């Protein structure tokens, strides 16, 4: 009787163990991943200036692009040219911006910075090599002519795009 019970238990245990086997599947394909490593912060070095430069007390936004296949994507980064959130401003804001390659994972990416195409507030990079590239964005907003920003919350949006070629 005991032998029968043990045999039955062994059969059930074996089948239960078999059912627990898990299969992990995955596939690798061409892709571009945009990672927002650091959201920037505006420093306020003078009453009428907001800047992401570390020298001005700001933090530069850092965006990482992971590209799994070279010659397949164009990275396009657009720096802010308006605030998405701010108190009411009665004068113009003068925006300046710069998008630069911060780091690269492959020496073949050395020409990304020199070959970049800039127009208005947008900068394009031809992602010709697979790997990781970090971009940093400098954004500076000066209020009127020597005017003082009203107190409040200021927020601006950097647009990071990855477009298949």
């Amino acid at each position, binding site marked *: 009787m005991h032998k029968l019970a043990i045999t039955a238990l062994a059969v059930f245990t074996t089948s239960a163990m078999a059912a627990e086997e898990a299969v992990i599947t995955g596939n690798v394909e061409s892709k571009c991943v945009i990672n927002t490593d650091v959201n920037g912060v505006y420093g306020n070095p003078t009453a009428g200036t907001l800047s992401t430069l570390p020298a001005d007390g700001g933090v530069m936004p850092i965006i990482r692009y992971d590209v799994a296949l070279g010659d397949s994507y164009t990275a396009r980064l657009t720096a802010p040219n308006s605030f998405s959130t701010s108190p009411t401003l009665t004068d113009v804001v003068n925006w300046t911006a710069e998008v630069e390659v911060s780091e690269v994972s492959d020496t073949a990416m050395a020409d990304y910075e020199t070959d970049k195409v800039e127009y208005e507030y947008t900068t394009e990079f031809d992602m010709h090599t697979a790997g990781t590239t970090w971009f940093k964005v400098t954004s500076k907003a000066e209020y009127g002519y020597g005017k003082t920003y009203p107190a409040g919350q200021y927020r601006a949006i950097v647009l990071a795009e*990855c477009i298949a070629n």
Partner: protein
Amino acid sequence: MKKMFYQTLAAVLATTTFASAVKAHEMLPTYPRLKPAYVDDVMQVQMRMFNKRQDVEWYEIGVFDEDMNPVPFVTGYRILKVKYLSHVTFDVYVRKSDAKRTAYICSQSKLRRDKREGTVIASRICSKFREPRL
């Protein structure tokens, strides 16, 4: 023993720091292909999206021609909710007459108005329909 403890601690800290720092947006396939839908004169494509951005829950879908002009399309929801660390598969339908000028399908993160100051990053990924599109 002490060395092993510190090595393990360093590995754990590195993993958790890296994991908490990851904020990414991805959409696949990069080169989709339109196929006939179950409705006459309508083409469809299936896309997948993965959200690793903890600060973003909503993504807007758009279909565009070569010059980034919008192309009419239909999908279940134009703005999709993609929870953090989750995959979403969605179908996009375009008219057969528009299929030849359809060049890009894009997803763009929708940012919430909140208390954060400074700059925030909107991410946009565009897949491309290569020839032959049909």
